[in-house]
């Protein structure tokens, strides 16, 4: 049984300018002991989708889904109190903005201790031992002293590691890590990723990694979901995705990596992700796509088969070239 099963998830925000669909029919299935990466354009709804799963979106968001199951429980029918018991314990999240997720008024030690008290009912002495252990695990030196530190006294990378320690405190079954290593330098990043992967191996924890770092994806993830403008445009195992991306967006994404660049100007995807007021009628990527044909501009594309990375495209690419409409059907 899948640990997390999300079917046809959509999130619509009520904004002053009208309704805005930030997540549009996304399926996310995570098996126990799996590392899934979610990559994609900024604003493509990666964070919003996961915040919806966590039940942490503001009231202006309408969330719908055909299924939303975690560990056999239906998140949609769960009472708020029951849901709160899961969130932060069995399913926890490292947020994209570590600075604003830490409460500036409380010390690091207090904030980690709170989760241990609420979810595990640990007493003061147990909490201290566990907190020190956690800080040490995430590579914070001098943990005893850092307990008394306030968030503003930490560097960016350190607050991020405190966040990671908090997320791991109750030994979650599923950890959603939203850009867990943006503020970390590479040696610590390597250490944190090793820690997460070893937790996965030892405890069977599953990991959803939202990241823009394709190096991290290549080295850590087993499977990748690619999102664009709220839609899921490709999904496949990591190795084939890097070797032969099928959706033109994925192709453009990999081409824009500095390490693959051959000139001082990087290849970019022309244009911008569609906004609230200029959603194309057909394929959402068509206005920026080098291979778009007439049908792409008028009719939303179907999902290609698994061999084509389930690419949401009329003419998925093979070795960088479109293979014609037949392949998509």
């Amino acid at each position, binding site marked *: 049984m899948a640990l997390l099963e999300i079917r046809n998830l959509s999130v619509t925000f009520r904004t002053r300018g009208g309704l805005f669909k930030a997540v549009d029919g996304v399926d996310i299935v995570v098996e126990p002991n799996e590392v899934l990466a979610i990559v994609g354009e900024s604003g493509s709804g990666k964070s919003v989708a996961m915040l919806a799963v966590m039940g942490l979106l503001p009231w202006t968001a309408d969330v719908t889904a055909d299924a939303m199951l975690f560990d056999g429980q239906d998140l949609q029918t769960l009472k708020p109190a029951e849901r709160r018991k899961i969130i932060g314990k069995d399913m926890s999240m490292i947020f994209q903005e570590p600075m604003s997720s830490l409460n500036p008024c409380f010390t690091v030690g207090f904030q980690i201790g709170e989760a241990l008290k609420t979810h595990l009912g640990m007493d003061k002495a147990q909490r201290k031992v566990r907190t020190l252990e956690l800080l040490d695990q995430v590579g914070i030196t001098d943990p005893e002293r850092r307990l008394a530190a306030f968030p503003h006294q930490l560097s960016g990378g350190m607050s991020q590691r405190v966040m990671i320690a908090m997320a791991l405190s109750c030994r979650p079954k599923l950890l959603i890590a939203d850009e867990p290593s943006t503020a970390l330098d590479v040696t610590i990043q*390597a250490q944190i990723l090793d820690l997460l992967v070893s937790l996965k191996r030892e405890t069977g924890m599953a990991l959803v990694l939202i990241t823009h770092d394709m190096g991290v994806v290549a080295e850590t993830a087993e499977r990748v979901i690619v999102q664009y403008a709220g839609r899921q445009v490709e999904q496949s195992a990591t190795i084939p995705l890097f070797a032969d991306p099928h959706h033109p967006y994925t192709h453009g994404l990999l081409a824009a990596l500095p390490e693959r660049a051959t000139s001082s100007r990087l290849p970019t995807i022309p244009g911008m992700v569609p906004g609230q007021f200029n959603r194309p009628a057909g394929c959402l990527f068509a206005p920026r796509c080098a291979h778009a044909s007439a049908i792409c501009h008028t009719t939303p594309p179907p999902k290609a088969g698994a061999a084509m990375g389930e690419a949401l495209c009329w003419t998925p690419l093979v070795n960088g070239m479109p293979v014609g409409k037949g392949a998509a059907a």
Partner: protein
Amino acid sequence: MNAIPKPSAILEARALSRQYIVRRGMFSPYASVRALEGVSFSLEAGKTLAVVGESGSGKSTLGRLVTMIETPSSGALIINGKDVVEADPATRERLRREIQIVFQNPYGSLNPRQTIGMALEEPLLVNTDMSARDREAAARAMMARVGLRPEFYGRYPHMFSGGQRQRIAIARALMLNPKLLVLDEPVSALDVSIRAQVLNLLKDLQEEFGLAYLFISHDLSVVKHISDDIMVIYLGHAVEIGSREAIFTNPQHPYTRALLAATPVADPGHKKERIILSGELPSPFEPPSGCPFHPRCAQAVAQCKVDAPVLEQKSGRSVACWVV
């Protein structure tokens, strides 16, 4: 140090140091953190100096000193040939405008109650006598320049994704046409294709305006792409400074080598040898004796524990290491 700054050097740092006095607990004594220790470099117009190093090594501290948000505990900072510590308040105000910063955390630096338009126009409102119409025109032009949609003008920061907010922060820093931009992890929150656009944009702006960049980043693939020179810092000390060529093709300092080896490669088939750093990150409260890197260094010899190496010219770059 009495080196004469090069005429084109926009920024010259001489033995910059910064300490923070902190108290570790309610009843514990005060202690000092040496966030930056005697860092020297110069930066010319139109050039990019990348600063890389461990979390907590003092990169942001350096950024705050260079942008005059904080004053150095010791050392000199010379901007456009003027020593900022000795400058009169009016000159300092003017120098301050020429150096802008894009903060590591775009969430904290954008006021949640300001629309994007207001955020971009504020520097103009405070520092120039442009009319409201001209300010709006300048803000809209800058939005287009950095790839923000026109309808974002009246929106508030919370309505944007991480990447969109970072572009707003970059746009805001550029509003006063600075000569030098301190970019503190400017693209680490961005998605790959926007990052490529921003890196191209930064290159264009640099060529167009002769901007100098102090580029703080932990992403070595980006650093390799954008920088002319690289400074590697460790626990507040510069351990290696050299051209991009020198650092990437032939790194000398054992820490620089470990850094390069730990960088993830966007190729799942790639097998690489990792240099695993042994030992723990040293505490900035009690920095190691001798070379700050010696407790984690596989090549350390007896001397490294005792004497702190200073930067020396070796193999076409400056490196502070007894062994190489």
